């Protein structure tokens, strides 16, 4: 299947995360121009960079860029630089996020703000800025990384689940607004994926989660990355917009 993602300018947030790394690798395999967004020290990208080298992928298409997604000014500067360099943005993958597993009544104000900021507000600010560029080009694809807990489960991660449900709804509404401008907005809802983020959860509830999953295994980051590439490709999903695609082995059913 030809995804035709070669040379497409793809922005990926949270590129140093468990799923983020595989999303970057996956688009690099397609020879997309991958702008890997991260916050803070570039040391965070060492794992990703060694994986790029190990996979024999060229760094020619890899463009790491630091950005503080909580700051509109930082986002603006970052997008200006990208436009200066490439002249366009074809795909935005809103992958950055953070979870907070805690009983609802124990969540402190700063923790609520962190979860809101990391999962909803930053995504919204970046999407607004990128959409300006996509509107002018009348072309673009946005894929939001949501979660199975946006639809089912979520006990212990109530606020995170609420934010992800918000991401789903934002995806759907934006899809209705931007369709006429040839911009598609979709989301993926990963189930239990083998990453550091889900490590603790797997450890404690491994047997239960596997037994609850119809496909009887946890997902791999590449499962999510492949679904994202599918949704980002106009060659194979051009009539799909506003979906919140479950990539969860059936656990959300």
């Amino acid at each position: 299947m030809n995804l035709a993602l070669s040379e497409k300018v793809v922005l990926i947030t949270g590129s140093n995360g468990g799923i983020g790394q595989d999303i970057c690798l996956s688009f690099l395999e397609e020879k997309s121009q991958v702008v890997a967004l991260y916050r803070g020290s570039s040391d965070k990208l060492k794992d990703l960079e060694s994986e790029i080298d190990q996979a024999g992928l060229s760094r020619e298409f890899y463009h790491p860029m630091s950005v503080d997604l909580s700051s509109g000014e930082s986002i603006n500067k970052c997008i200006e630089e990208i436009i200066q360099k490439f002249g366009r943005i074809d795909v935005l993958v809103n992958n950055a996020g953070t979870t907070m597993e805690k009983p609802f009544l124990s969540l402190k104000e700063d923790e609520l703000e962190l979860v809101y900021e990391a999962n909803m507000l930053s995504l919204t600010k970046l999407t607004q800025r990128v959409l300006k560029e996509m509107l002018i080009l009348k072309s673009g694809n946005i894929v939001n990384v949501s979660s199975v807990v946006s639809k089912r489960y979520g006990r212990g991660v109530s606020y995170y689940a609420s934010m992800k449900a918000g991401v789903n709804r934002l995806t759907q509404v934006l899809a209705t607004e931007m369709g006429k401008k040839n911009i598609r907005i979709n989301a993926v809802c990963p189930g239990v994926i083998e990453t550091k983020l889900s490590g603790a959860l797997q450890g404690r509830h491994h047997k239960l989660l596997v037994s609850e999953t119809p496909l009887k295994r946890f997902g791999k980051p590449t499962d999510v990355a492949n679904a994202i590439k599918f949704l980002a490709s106009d060659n194979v999903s051009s009539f799909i917009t506003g979906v919140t695609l479950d990539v969860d082995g059936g656990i959300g059913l």
Partner: protein
Amino acid sequence: MNMEEVFEKVSEVIVDASDVEADEISLDKRLIDDLDIDSIDMMELIYSIEKIYGVELEIGDFEGAMNREMNGVPFAKDNIITDEGLQKLRELMPEVDQTKIQPGLAVYNVPFLFTVESLCKLIMRKSAAKN
């Protein structure tokens, strides 16, 4: 930069961003009520113009922009344009239907007053301020 040049460019952008045909566009046409430009097309129109001219039109923050222009005299209170704000609007937008600039006018209704000429003048004003 004169009105004719700006009008020509604005017309091109309107045609590109919306379903409006070139021969429907004239300086006196209101963007929303006459040309039927919807909010999404309006966003594309504004961003395209901002890109072309390298200016910020600040239509999304019209009240903030007017407050800055009025040197601290409030343009609006509780979303209703003040008497001083109405006077400023009349000065800046003599081309619009003046009977609409009346006490009680809400800030969110200002975009409905905008004609093609208003937009052209705003571009010229912002470009002049930038230079």
